[in-house]
């Protein structure tokens, strides 16, 4: 019923949906067996961070994509410095770049053609 059988394996969306539903039910069943006597609105409901308070600013917790590829950005800093200056955040600037690039491609195509 809606399934696909091939040499690479089988796929049936209904079977997968039932499986995920089963996992959800088991998950909720396990969760419902947990302790319910935590006092809401107190430190008992706060995450444990080795006794430290939870930082208010999300920036201090968030691992940015830049944290992963900072070496590349550092290596190509001359390039990024120039390119970042072009990213003004103003929509009309981006539209002007788009029209300029489109015009350039158009001229090149005419030149070749």
């Amino acid at each position, binding site marked *: 019923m809606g399934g696909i059988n091939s040499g690479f394996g089988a796929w049936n969306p209904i079977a997968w949906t039932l499986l995920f539903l089963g996992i959800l039910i088991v998950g909720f069943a396990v969760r419902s067996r947990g*302790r319910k*006597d*935590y*006092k809401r609105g*107190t*430190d*008992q409901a*706060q995450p*444990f961070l*080795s*006794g*430290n*308070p939870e930082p208010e600013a999300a920036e201090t917790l968030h691992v940015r994509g830049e944290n992963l590829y900072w070496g590349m950005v550092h290596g190509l800093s001359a390039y990024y410095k120039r390119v970042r200056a072009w990213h003004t955040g103003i929509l009309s600037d981006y539209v002007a770049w788009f029209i300029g690039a489109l015009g350039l491609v158009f001229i090149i195509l005419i030149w070749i053609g």
Partner: protein
Amino acid sequence: MALPRSFKRALWVFHIATGSCNGCDIEIVAALTPRYDVERFGIMLTGTPRHADVLLVTGPVTRPMLPRLKRVYDQTPDPKAVVVVGGCGCTGGVFYESYNIVGPVDEVIPVDVYVPGCPARPEAIIDGVVKAVTKLETLEKAGVV
């Protein structure tokens, strides 16, 4: 508030060092080794006070550890028992009235059981935890917790 079912099945203990020399902390670890093997009684160290029934506190409570000890105590669900392990936590020990000490522990949080010693022996620590549980069970029977 009655003791939760998990309390009667197995006792989860959270250990916090508030500036100890690590002597008592090593003895707590020794209580977990096969020689003493507290896990056979269902006593287990947990990684977060949010899952703990008993707090094991070592050290005389240094100034930087004061807010952390209070927060860990507040994060432990009720009913809970606090066991102080070692002379420093019980009285301040050799650090008594030191400029950087705000303890002993009972100056900061309520304490149920004191286990003195420098360091306290594993048998004494186990006895302290059992006494804390006994106290909570007695209070439950009396309808206090």
